[in-house]
């Protein structure tokens, strides 16, 4: 099988495929359940899309622009990102606490759905040592692919965003027929 990207076209329209940004994904079947997962931070911009074959021509995409505001020194960059990571972890706890307190006022149907989704989602790991060693770390295993600290930081941010995105999508998705009446009643 070839490489696969997952991408969302505006309004699900193939005509608006150009310049959409997708991510590299992997598809596997575990226990008769199709699992779609992304294990890369790389993104691709679609240049053209063939709706007959479902293949697209895409090029690498990077809009982080980190060089403009990040220090050039690697140690200073790491210090700054470590500080940001600490803030991110605090934000995670505060936000979860507030969300739990706010969700209690929602209908039981929504709460049940939130519980179900939250239990199945993987929470992001904020401990940097549990990720692939940084390329700046001496004595790393040469078989392990080198990953910069910034890529690890990006991975944590993406995972955190994905967690909340999945939660809100599951609860408040407009095509969610079971939740929509409850939300309407509540409003």
């Amino acid at each position, binding site marked *: 099988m070839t*490489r696969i990207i997952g*991408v969302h076209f505006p309004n*699900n329209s193939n005509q608006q495929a150009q310049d959409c940004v997708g*991510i590299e994904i992997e598809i596997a079947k575990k226990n008769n359940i199709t699992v779609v997962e*992304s*294990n890369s931070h790389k993104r691709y911009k679609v240049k053209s899309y063939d709706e007959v074959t479902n293949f*697209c*021509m895409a090029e690498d995409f990077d809009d982080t622009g980190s060089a403009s505001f990040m220090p050039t020194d690697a140690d200073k960059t790491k210090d700054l990102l470590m500080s940001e990571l600490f803030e991110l972890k605090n934000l995670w706890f505060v936000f979860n606490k507030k969300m739990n307190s706010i969700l209690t006022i929602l209908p039981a149907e929504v709460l049940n759905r939130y519980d179900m989704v939250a239990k*199945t989602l993987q929470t992001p790991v904020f401990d940097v040592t549990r990720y692939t060693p940084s390329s700046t770390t001496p004595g790393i295993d040469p078989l392990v692919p080198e990953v910069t600290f910034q890529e690890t930081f990006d991975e944590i941010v993406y995972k955190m965003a994905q967690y909340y995105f*999945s939660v809100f999508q599951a609860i408040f998705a407009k095509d969610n027929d079971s939740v929509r009446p409850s939300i309407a009643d509540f409003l």
Partner: protein
Amino acid sequence: MFPTGLQAGSGLFHLPMATFAKKAGGPPTKKAESAVKTESKKVKPAKKEQTDDSEPVAPKKAAAKKGKKEEEKLPPPVYKLYTLKFNSPILPFAKFPLTQNKYI
């Protein structure tokens, strides 16, 4: 990964005629010879500039600028990828074990 060298406009189809003539083994045309001559003429002044020690900074800068321009001119690699369409935006490191819950 898919090599994209055969893409139109990627540079493969823009080889000068002189190189075709050389590769084919045929006699070089007058145009080709003149092109080669002009290239060699163009190269010579650059060598002089590099050997000149009076202004070491300026030529280096110029070379660096040329290098940058060449890098900018190079088109980014284009990949042919199978596309899976999602109903909603998708982020890197996303995992979808909840396919039964209308995620995709």
